[in-house]
C-alpha cells in the first residue's frame, strides 16, 4: 500500500504533461498553422491571378498609364486634354480629391466649431436649432445628402440672368459659382513673400508675448496684432509696387459669365454636401470635448472672477482641445474617404477617374493597386502629422 502510494506520487512529479497542455508550445503550433493557411491562401490567389491574366491576355503591367486617356474631365485642378496620358489624368483626379477634401475640411471645421458651441448655448432656441441640424445630418446617409444638394438645390438656383450676387464680384447661379480670379503681374512674388513674412512674424510675436507674460504677467494683444500684421504688410507692399495682383472679376456676357474663376455645380454641391455633413460630426466632437471637462473647472474659474466667456477661452477650451484632437483626426480621414462619393454627382475625383480608366483599359488589378496606394498613403500622412501634433499638445504626465 505504502509502496503504491509512493510510486504514484513520484509519477506525478516526474510526469511530463503532453505538449498541447503547454501554453507556449500550443501558441507556437497555432501560429504555424495560421501561417501555413495564410501562405496557402496567398499562393492560391496569386496563382489564380496569374492564370486569369494569362487567359485574358492582360499580363500585369503599368505601361497602360502612358496611353492616351481619350476622355475629358468636367473639372480639373491643372490643365488636361483628351490626348493626355492616363497617368496625367490620374494625377488630376488625385489633385481634385485633395482639393475638395482640403476645402471641405476647412469649411467643416469652422462650421462645426460654431455649431458645437451653439449646441451648448444657454439660449434655448439656438441650442435646439443646432440640435436639429446635427441630428438631421447625422441620421441620413451622406450619399442622399449629396444627391439632394446636387439635383435639388443646385437645380433650384436662379438662371444666369437672375444670379445671386454678392457685392457685384461673386455670383451664384444654375451653372455654378463665379468668383474673381487673381491675375499675377510681375512683382506678385513680392506680395506673397510679404504674406509669408507677416505669418512668420506673427508666430515670433506669439512666442515673445508668451515669454513676456510668463516673465512679467503682462498680456499682449497677440491676436489683434497678428491680424493687423497679416493684412497690413502685404497690402502696403502691394501698394508700393502698384497692385501687382489684379482681380479678374466675372462679367455677365450673352449667355453666361465671362472671366473670373468658375466652379461648376458639381464642385459646389460636393463641397457644400460634404462640408455640412462633416460639420455635424465635428460639432458633436466639440460638444463632447467641452462637456468632458469637469464642471468644477468652470465653477472654479467663475469663482476666481473670470467672466463666463473668459472661463471658456482660458480654462475650458485649452483642456478640451486635447480631448478633441484624436476624434478630429479620424474625422479628417473620413473627409478624404468620403470624397470618393463625388463620382455619384459627376465630380471627377480619383475614384471616379480610376473607375473610368479601368472601364476603358480593363486593367482592374493595376488600377485598384494605384487607388489603394493613394488612399492608404494619404491616410498614413494625415494620421502621422496629426498624431505628432497630438503628442506635442498632450499633457506630459510624470
Amino acid at each position, binding site marked *: 500500500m505504502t509502496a503504491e502510494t509512493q510510486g504514484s506520487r513520484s509519477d506525478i512529479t516526474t510526469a511530463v504533461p503532453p505538449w498541447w497542455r503547454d501554453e507556449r508550445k500550443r*501558441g507556437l503550433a*497555432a*501560429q504555424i498553422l*495560421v*501561417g501555413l493557411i*495564410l501562405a496557402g491562401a496567398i499562393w492560391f*490567389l496569386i496563382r*489564380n*491571378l496569374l*492564370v*486569369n*491574366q494569362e*487567359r485574358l491576355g492582360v499580363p500585369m503591367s503599368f505601361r497602360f498609364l502612358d496611353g492616351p486617356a481619350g476622355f475629358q474631365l468636367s473639372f480639373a485642378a491643372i490643365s488636361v486634354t483628351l490626348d493626355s496620358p492616363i497617368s496625367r489624368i490620374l494625377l488630376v483626379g488625385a489633385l481634385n480629391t485633395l482639393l475638395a477634401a482640403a476645402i471641405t475640411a476647412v469649411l467643416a471645421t469652422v462650421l462645426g466649431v460654431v455649431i458645437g458651441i451653439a449646441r451648448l*448655448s*444657454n*439660449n*434655448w*432656441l*439656438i441650442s435646439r*436649432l443646432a440640435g436639429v441640424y446635427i*441630428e*438631421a445630418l*447625422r*441620421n*441620413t*446617409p*451622406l*450619399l*442622399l445628402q449629396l*444627391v*439632394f444638394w446636387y*439635383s*435639388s438645390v443646385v*437645380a433650384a438656383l436662379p438662371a444666369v440672368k437672375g444670379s445671386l450676387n454678392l457685392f457685384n464680384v461673386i455670383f451664384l447661379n444654375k451653372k455654378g459659382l463665379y468668383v474673381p480670379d487673381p491675375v499675377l503681374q510681375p512683382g506678385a512674388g513680392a506680395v506673397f513673400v510679404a504674406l509669408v513674412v507677416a505669418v512668420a512674424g506673427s508666430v515670433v510675436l506669439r512666442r515673445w508675448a508668451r515669454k513676456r507674460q510668463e516673465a512679467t504677467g503682462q498680456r499682449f494683444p497677440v491676436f489683434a496684432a497678428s491680424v493687423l500684421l497679416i493684412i497690413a504688410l502685404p497690402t502696403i507692399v502691394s501698394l508700393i509696387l502698384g497692385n501687382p495682383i489684379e482681380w479678374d472679376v466675372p462679367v455677365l456676357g450673352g449667355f453666361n459669365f465671362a472671366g473670373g474663376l468658375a466652379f461648376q455645380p458639381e464642385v459646389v454641391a460636393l463641397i457644400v454636401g460634404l462640408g455640412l455633413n462633416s460639420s455635424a460630426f465635428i460639432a458633436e466632437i466639440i460638444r463632447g470635448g467641452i462637456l468632458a471637462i*469637469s*464642471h468644477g473647472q468652470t465653477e472654479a474659474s467663475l469663482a476666481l472672477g473670470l467672466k463666463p466667456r473668459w472661463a471658456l477661452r482660458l480654462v475650458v477650451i485649452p483642456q478640451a482641445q486635447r480631448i478633441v484632437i484624436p476624434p478630429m483626426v479620424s474625422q479628417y480621414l473620413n473627409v478624404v*474617404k*468620403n470624397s*470618393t*462619393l463625388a*463620382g*455619384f454627382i459627376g465630380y471627377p475625383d480619383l*475614384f471616379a477617374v480610376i*473607375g473610368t480608366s*479601368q472601364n476603358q483599359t480593363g486593367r*482592374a*488589378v493595376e488600377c*485598384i493597386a494605384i*487607388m*489603394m496606394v493613394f*488612399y*492608404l498613403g494619404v*491616410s*498614413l500622412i494625415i494620421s502621422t502629422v496629426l498624431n505628432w501634433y497630438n503628442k506635442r499638445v498632450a499633457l506630459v504626465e510624470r
Partner: protein
Amino acid sequence: MADTTANNNLNAQMEPGLRPSLPPPTIETGAIGWVRHNLFSGWLNTLLTVFAIYILYLVIPPFVSWAFINATWTVPPLAAGAADHPPQFGDCRANAGACWIFVEARLPQFIYGFYPAPERWRVDIVFVILALSVVGLLSERFKFKRQLGIFFFTAFPVLAFWLLYGGLGLEVVETRLWGGFMLTLILSGIGIVFSLPLGVLLALGRRSELPVVHMLCVLLIEFVRGVPLLTILFMANVMLPFFLPPGVEFNVLLRVLLGVTIFAAAYMAEVVRGGLQALPKGQYEGAMAMGLGYWQMMRLIILPQALRIAIPGIVNNFISLAQDTTLVAIVGLYDFLNIVRAGSRDTNWLGTEIEGYAFCALVYWVFCFAMSRYSMHLERKLHTGHKKR
C-alpha cells in the same frame, strides 16, 4: 383695506427674519421667467434669439406650404376629354407644392424592388417576424429572450433565406430582382449580424500575444480602415473574379455582402478593442487566478463587460453601416436610395426628385434616430459609474 391692516399687524408682531417668505416675483417664474432666462438674458442672447427666429421664419413657412398646404396628396379626377393615364407628374401641375402621389404610386417598388408582385407576401412575413423578434429582444419585460435570441440568430436566417429566395416548393426569386427597402434591410441586417462576431475575433487577435496572429489582425484592420468603402466594394466587384479559379463565380449580392461585412468588422474591432482596453487589468488577472483558460476567461469574464462598455460605439457603427449600404449603388444594386433615384428619373415622374429624397431621408432618419436614442437609453441604464449629470 381691512386685509392690509391685518397683514401689517402680523408683520409688526414678527421678529425680523421670521417673516413668511414672499412668493418670487412673477417676472422670475413660469413662462415669463423661463423666456427671460433662456432667451433674453442679455443683449447677446437677445440678438441670438432674434437671429434664430429669423432663420425659422426663413425656413418653416415655405417648407410647410410646400410639404403640406400646396402639396398634391391624391390623384386629381380626370379632366373632361383627357385620355386615361397612369398617375404621373403632370397630375401635380395644378399645385405648386410637393407631389406626394409620386411616393404613393411608387411605394411598392420602393419597398420590394423588382420582387414579383404575387410573391411579395413572402417578404411581408419576413418583415413581420423580424419586427416582432426585434421588439421582443429589445423590450425589458419579455421572458423568453434567450429562446428568441437562439431562434433569431440560427433558425431565422435560414427561414428568411428560404422565404426570400425560394426553392423547396416556393418559386425561386433571383437576387437580382431584390431591391428597395427590403434590400437595404437585408444588407444592413446581415452586415450587423456578421460584423460583430468577426469584429470581436479581430479585436481579440489584435490584443493577442502571438506575433503572427497579432500582425495579421493589425494589417487587416488598418488596411480596411485606411481605404474608403467604395474602393472595397469596387475591389469585391471588379477584382475578386481575377483571384478566383476560372469558372468560379460569385453572386454580385454575395460579393457586396462580403465587402460590407469585412469593412464593418474592421471598425467594430476597434470599438471592441476600446472596450477590452478599458477593463481594469485585475479582471484578467482575477480570471486567470481562478484557473480559467483563455477562451473561458474571454467568454465568461472579459467579453460580457467589454462589450457592455463598447455598446455606444457598436450602435454608432450599426448606424453608419445602415447608411453606408447606400453605396452599393456603385455596383448597380437598387437599394432603397437608388431605387428612389431611379424612380424620379422615370419620364413620367421627371421633376419629383425632391419628393423622393425627402421621403427617403425621412425613413432613414426615423430608423437611425431610433437606434441612436436606444443606444443612449442603454448607456444610461448600464451606467454604473459616477458621472456628472
